């Protein structure tokens, strides 16, 4: 562990990963945690491209999906005893094929960053997604392909029939992959990826081909996306075209962005938040995708450095011991902000519902009555005004909390 700075953070991460099932042990919770472990690896691998390397990809699901398909094929081969090894190693198979796909596609797509790279990634994404429907002997057409993870040699008696067993496999893999992705950022290749992101031209004048620097990040990113695909295959035991198409590519972009591209932990936060929204919110509202979209828009507009950036913003105030100055203004702005959100969501849901009585929080609202609408609109308007007014005070408090003390100015 001496390899890692702040080893206590890593130990805490590992303990959290392994300890979560002791706290949340329902079938739903285990299933969500499996998805989170997969999403963390996938989102971190995406951030190697966008956050660390400045490559905006619209087709990252390709490496995830190809890794996943190969992994399901490997499961099938294990089932028919063509290959004999423990399914523990399946994510590695996904990783190797993610890497191979990365080497092949990266060889021509990393020539330039920016729009050219983005367009090529979009094109490749569409190409692979379309091909997967055409070459149905390998990809299984729209139904996809499925395997069975309970074959092959058992591991100390575990046959991985239970989801909880797969969770531990996924958690350990996610931990290992996270450690290696972090270590990559601490190497010359990882640092030069940042340098090329910031200024590809200058990187060339200090001796580095910006193309080759991008290529290395791209391949590494493909490797880890493939590992995530392998974990997906183990968890669900099937995979379809949906897992390598543009929707999946879009989702991983959202995770990394909402979490915060500039911070290593950002995509982890994004993966957790989006997976939770996806799994929990979808139970309550058919419109959860709309809320996700609104959240993305608000993040782009007001928190361009994501959730992680929002937390890190408070570093200075924290160091100066001024956090308490911010608590009150945050509450004063926070309460009307929550009220506003609650009313807007009620209005959106009401315009969508066909029921006569609309159950919302503890209330029973009547969508047919204009009074309901007027009251909600009124509260929303008032809350919005209150937020706007209190933002000024919040801003002042922020300035004071972050102000440079007199003695430091000189």
């Amino acid at each position, binding site marked *: 562990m001496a*390899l890692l*700075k702040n080893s206590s953070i890593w130990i805490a991460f590992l303990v959290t990963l392994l300890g979560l099932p002791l706290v949340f042990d329902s079938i739903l919770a285990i299933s969500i945690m499996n998805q989170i472990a997969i999403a963390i690896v996938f989102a971190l691998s995406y951030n190697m491209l966008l956050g660390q390397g400045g490559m905006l990809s619209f087709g990252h699901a390709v490496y995830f999906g190809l890794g996943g398909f190969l992994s399901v094929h490997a499961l099938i081969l294990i089932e028919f005893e063509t290959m004999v090894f423990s399914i523990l190693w399946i994510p590695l198979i996904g990783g190797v094929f993610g890497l191979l796909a990365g080497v092949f596609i990266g060889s021509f797509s990393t020539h330039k960053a920016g729009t050219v790279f983005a367009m090529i990634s979009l094109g490749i994404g569409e190409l692979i997604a379309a091909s997967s429907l055409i070459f149905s002997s390998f990809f299984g057409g729209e139904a996809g392909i499925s395997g069975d993870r309970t074959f092959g040699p058992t591991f100390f008696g575990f046959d991985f029939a239970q989801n909880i067993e797969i969770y531990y496999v996924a958690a350990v893999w996610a931990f290992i992959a996270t450690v290696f992705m972090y*270590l*990559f950022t*601490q*190497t*010359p*290749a*990882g*640092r*030069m990826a*940042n*340098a090329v*992101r*910031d*200024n590809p*031209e*200058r*990187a*060339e*004048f*200090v*001796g*580095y*081909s910006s193309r*080759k*620097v991008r290529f*290395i990040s791209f391949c*590494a990113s493909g490797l880890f996306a493939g590992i995530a695909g392998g974990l997906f295959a183990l968890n669900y035991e099937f995979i379809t075209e949906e897992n390598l198409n543009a929707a999946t590519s879009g989702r991983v972009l959202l995770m990394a962005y909402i979490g915060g591209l*500039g911070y290593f932990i950002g995509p982890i936060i994004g993966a957790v938040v989006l997976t939770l929204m996806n799994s929990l919110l979808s139970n309550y509202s058919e419109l959860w995708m709309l809320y996700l979209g609104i959240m993305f828009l608000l993040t782009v507009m007001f928190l361009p450095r994501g959730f992680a950036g929002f937390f890190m913003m408070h570093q200075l105030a924290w160091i100066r011991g001024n956090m308490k100055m911010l608590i009150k203004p945050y509450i004063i702005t926070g309460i009307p902000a929550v009220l506003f959100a609650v009313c807007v969501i009620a209005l959106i849901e009401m315009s969508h519902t066909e029921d006569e009585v609309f159950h919302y929080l503890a209330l029973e609202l009547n969508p047919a009555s204009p009074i309901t609408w007027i009251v909600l609109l009124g509260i929303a308007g008032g809350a919005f005004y209150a937020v706007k007014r209190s933002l000024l005070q919040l801003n002042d408090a922020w300035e004071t909390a972050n102000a440079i003390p007199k003695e430091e100015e000189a």
Partner: protein
Amino acid sequence: MAILSLVDVKKNFGITEIIRGVSLDIVEGEKHAIIGPNGAGKSTLFHLISGRYNVTAGNIRFKEEHIENKPPYEIARMGLARSFQVTNIFSRMSVFENIRCALFWSMDYGYSFWHLLGRQTELNDAAMHVLEQIGLTDKAKFPSGELAYAQQRALELGIAIASGAELIMLDEPVAGMSHSEAQNTVELIRKITEGKTLIMVEHDMNIVFDVADRISVLVYGEIIATDSPENIRANPKVQEAYLGEVPSA
């Protein structure tokens, strides 16, 4: 012996000739200044030598090897480093990281993804040493994009000299600096280019005449004179090109 030699180098952009046949030998160890009016092609000439632009015709040899039309990174690896007129740094990285990135190749790290930077004591010490030289030690962890202008210029210079290249090319290293800042920078340039070859583009004639062993005058894409500072000052062709702007003292 010439460390760098240009033979009839030409550069066109479309039908516009920017460099119209430049031949120049830079002697190993000399401090060479290139001066000339705005738009003469000084920066273009730098870009041609350092590989940012391809030449239209002619050839450039560095340490006997042809470097025309080679990519910048290959030329940089041979020991030719340069700075830019407009600050050109890794703006989202810290000052220390900027310098460390400039050191990787010369310290044989290549594209390594198996060396952990925290453990490379020699590399980190070398980076701190460069920071000391350029006077940015206390800004090591500071985001480089948020430095004051003069400090960014110092960093710009630091990135160029970090690798210990034999030939250093500086494009207006003191542009926009106050008088005292410029003086400090000149001292720094003198110190770090000791025993090395320097090519410098500069508008401040006092600095040029102070630092340079030889001066080339570039006018409309052609070198009209290459000589010692005294002879350049006395050259009627140069005086004509500058309309008497060459300082007499």
